[in-house]
């Protein structure tokens, strides 16, 4: 698809990438759980432009070019995790700030796949953007059942298997820390769909390349990494953990070096395309992940700090490519010298 941008900015770099059969017009997506299904952000972008409430920034054009489908400026939207039945999420405190980071223990609160199909997914169908549905489960057959239900819908462009969330007790991260289980859940889901299957990896393992190879063997089309780093916080006055489950997931700029190294190692270990994520806040961060071997990138925690992060990063990435003489984003992917 040729966007209006190509006509308005003549010497723009070619940004389109593919992850298996998933075509993205640029390498930007969002990290699951930080963006819901995008509706709140789309409305905020639209209203901010309408109000003219920030200095007329160049990235306004990125939003205007989408012709009232603001999310279509993304390469893809990645949804909040969806499970077979509704999940209530975790009790108690759910977020705590740390130095350059954020700990969360949301617990994958979601209304279940049925409500998702008639709610967020239906809305996304009209937004003219590829949709990666993030799938969660307590057991391999639950992941399979969620995908089987989503297969009845035309909107999902790809699935991302969350086998890496530290915030639920049963399933999830336990699949992502054991190569045999990772391969099995990937294979079970592979049987349910021909749509692109992305598996999201946890950094909380001895050797992430081992899990990556297992997912490749199980039939994954792409990998996304990293999910949050397991951590905790302590309330010193009460002398007790801040989070009811003790463990929480660390995200934000604090984990960027960890994520970058994981992407670098995994890109050398498998032949699958990668979505890199972990602490991306600037266009240069995006370029770092591409150079490390990612084909696409996801922006997560930065959306909380700057709800206009996505249009801002897209514009900055174009400017960076232009000033560096990059004509095609593929020059950067795995382009470490």
């Amino acid at each position: 698809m040729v966007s209006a941008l190509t006509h308005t900015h003549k010497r723009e770099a070619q940004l389109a990438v593919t992850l298996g059969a998933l075509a993205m017009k640029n390498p930007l997506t969002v990290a699951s759980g930080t963006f819901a299904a995008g509706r709140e952000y789309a409305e905020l972008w639209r209203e901010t432009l309408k109000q003219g409430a920030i200095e007329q920034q160049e990235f306004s054009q990125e939003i205007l070019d989408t012709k009232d489908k603001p999310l279509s400026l993304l390469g893809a939207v990645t949804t909040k995790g969806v499970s077979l039945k509704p999940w209530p999420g975790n009790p108690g405190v759910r977020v705590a700030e740390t130095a350059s980071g954020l700990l969360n223990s949301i617990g994958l609160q979601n209304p279940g796949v049925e409500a998702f199909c008639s709610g967020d997914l239906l809305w996304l169908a009209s937004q003219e953007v590829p949709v990666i549905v993030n799938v969660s489960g307590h057991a391999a057959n639950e992941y399979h059942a969620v995908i089987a239900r989503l297969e009845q819908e035309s909107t999902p462009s790809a699935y991302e298997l969350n086998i890496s969330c530290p915030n639920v007790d049963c399933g999830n991260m336990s699949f992502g820390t054991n190569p045999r289980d990772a391969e099995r859940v990937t294979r079970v889901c592979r049987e349910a769909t021909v749509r692109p299957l992305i598996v999201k990896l946890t950094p909380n393992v001895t050797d992430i390349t081992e899990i990556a190879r297992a997912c490749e063997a199980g039939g994954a089309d792409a990998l996304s990494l990293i999910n949050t780093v397991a951590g905790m916080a302590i309330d010193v006055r009460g002398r007790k953990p801040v989070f009811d489950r003790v463990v929480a997931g660390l995200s934000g700029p604090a984990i960027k070096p960890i994520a970058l190294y994981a992407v670098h190692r995994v890109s050398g270990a498998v032949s699958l395309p990668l979505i890199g994520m972990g602490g991306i806040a600037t266009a240069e961060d995006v370029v770092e992940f591409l150079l490390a071997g990612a084909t696409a990138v996801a922006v997560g925690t930065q959306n909380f700090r700057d709800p206009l992060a996505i249009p801002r990063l897209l514009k900055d990435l174009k400017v960076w490519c232009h000033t560096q003489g990059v004509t095609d984003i593929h020059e950067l992917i795995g382009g470490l010298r």
Partner: protein
Amino acid sequence: MAPFLEAVVVRKNDEIAPDISCVLLEAPRVAQCLEPGQFVHLLLPTFDAHILRRPFSVFATDAAGGLIEIVYQRLGEGTRFLAELQRGASLDLIGPLGQGWRAGANTRNALLVAGGIGIAPLNMLAAQLLTSARVCLITGAQSAERIVSLRLPSSVASATTKTGESRLTVITTTDDGSTGIKGLVTDVTGELLAQQDFDYLATCGPEPMQRIVAAHALAAGVTCEVSLERRMACGIGACLSCAVLTRDGTRRACVDGPVFNAEEVLW
């Protein structure tokens, strides 16, 4: 009104009581549309290792002057940092956010109960209600110097009933008795509800206090709204950090609240 991002400038930032400050922001667009009980999500400049915004109730707005006023207690690093900002400092905010008070135009006699800095979201509500209703405010703090007074437009402050009485009554409580009644706002609430015929109660303050006030209101059969505080990341309803357990399931303090009907809340 969908929330938006607005670049704002500090006009004034002064200490008004021990550990309590008031910042006046030039926010011409949010000042037009923010309703009583709603909040804004501030990004503090050069506070970069602290990656989250900070949510604040709005104490007053001046639509004509394009100003909003935030009264805040210096409790943590964010508020201490905010207190350092000088006139002319630039920052940005997301607003207007959240579900505000739903008092409604039918309210005739309202009781507002503020615990400490909980006065912050009640000031705008008092101003709104006083245009047509009687308002009784119970406001409490540790000591006289920590009581934050209402600041109302002069037309509203002087409003009287048909019999010439002021529409506004203020009852002050302090822990040390240095002004008003010695005791807690919760000590006074039940008594007052028994004496007078209120048709609406709004409260904000420490959550245990709000819970007691709400119990008094419900026992008296008075509609009661509470304003709850939660740790928050996005502020716009996407991240599900600020969960509030209600009869209606888990709700979000940032968009379904911060104001909730007390009957709905599972404390």
